[in-house]
């Protein structure tokens, strides 16, 4: 019986891989949870698109400040040492390759590392992109965090994205509730699988060719 990771376990797994001193942007939704799981002793500086470095935890109830929010428009706090700046500077940090990691949610990731996470392409869908395309092209490393399968049981790791792309060949590593997978020039390398899930079963569920990892990350 495989032990799928829940959302918090996925966040903790991503957090484990973010080293001391990193500048990190956490995307809206699932990636935001990573902030709660960063190891206590590590100094990691969180960036928010709307002009913050050093994003701190949620304020206590009643302490919210409408002028201090994150990219998801939720109230946050600022750590000592944090800074505010305008949007063009904020995206210079992103596009100018100053951020070490962007952790992004996804609808689909292709075997080439293409990312689709902004638009379902549906006829009546109103598109919204935000900073996703800038983060996908700009961060030094793009980490994707998503459920491995859709609610219908289809793999979100695909040969070719059927949804419109956010960025081509931009994903470095995929964290799912079933596995950690590196995207490399020669294909997808499985770094680890959850307890009780074999490589063969993972490959069957994923539906695209996977490689066994050479060395553990």
């Amino acid at each position, binding site marked *: 019986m495989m032990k799928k990771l829940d959302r918090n376990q996925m966040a903790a797994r991503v957090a484990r891989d973010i080293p001391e001193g990193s500048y990190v942007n956490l995307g809206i939704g699932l990636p935001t949870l990573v902030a709660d799981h960063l190891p206590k002793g590590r100094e990691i500086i969180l960036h928010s*698109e709307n002009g913050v470095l050093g994003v701190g935890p949620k304020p206590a109830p009643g302490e919210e400040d409408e002028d201090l929010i994150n990219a998801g428009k939720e109230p946050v706090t600022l750590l000592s040492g944090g800074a*505010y700046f305008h949007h*063009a500077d904020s995206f210079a940090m992103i596009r100018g390759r100053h951020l070490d990691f962007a952790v992004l949610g996804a609808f689909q990731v292709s075997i080439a590392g293409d990312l689709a996470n902004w638009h379902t392409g549906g006829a009546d869908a109103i598109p919204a992109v935000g900073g996703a395309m*800038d983060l996908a092209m700009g961060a030094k490393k793009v980490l994707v965090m998503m459920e491995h399968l859709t609610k219908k049981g289809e793999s979100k790791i695909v040969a070719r994205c059927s949804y419109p792309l956010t*960025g081509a060949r931009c994903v470095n590593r995929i964290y799912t509730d079933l596995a950690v997978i590196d995207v490399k020039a020669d294909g997808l390398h499985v770094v680890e699988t959850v307890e009780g899930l074999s490589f063969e079963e993972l490959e069957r569920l994923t539906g695209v060719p996977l490689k066994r990892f050479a060395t553990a990350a």
Partner: protein
Amino acid sequence: MIDKSFASAEAALADIPDGATIMIGGFGNAGMPALLIEALIAQGARELTIVNNNAGNADTGLAALIAAKRVRRILCSFPRQADSWHFDRAYRAGEIELELVPQGTLAERIRAAGAGIGAFYTPTAFGTLLAEGKETRRIADRDYVLEYPIHADYALIKADRADRWGNLVYRKTARNFAPIMAAAARCTVVQVREIVELGALDPEAVVTPGIFVKRVVKVASSLKKAA
């Protein structure tokens, strides 16, 4: 004597014509110049092109301007939100044209306008729907998309404090697009919490120098929760 302060938002916005392009500061409600938008609705200008990160939240501010059917076209990065119902309805009814721009490209296009840049190449959106029909170029080993500046007739922004020369300081993340919009518009109108004496703002901490600002309106303190 230079004095950019205006007695009221109505006076500061009186000359906005129909068809104007107006940048509106704010990211969601942080930095949204609520008083100026209310005055713009009352002023009555129509067929506006609006530049903002979003397309309005709930029923006030930019959402109210859209609900009043004053907006013909909007350039933004993130229109669809849980509470963007006025935009959603207008968009689905075909009453409003949307130019969706990645957030960093939006910021840089605004910055470029203020800085006198004719166009620039960005890697963002290369190979995606949002680059369709745009000129691209490979420089060294990367692919780029050509993007043009966004100029505006007016920018309506919110700052924390100003002096009569129009120097501005902001508060926390309410800064967001305001400094670059101030530079990109021909006439920048600012609502502030306080207008202070010349010299009271630390010159090392001024974020927007007054050269980018034409008009300053002080908001009554009772409006501080208005969104």
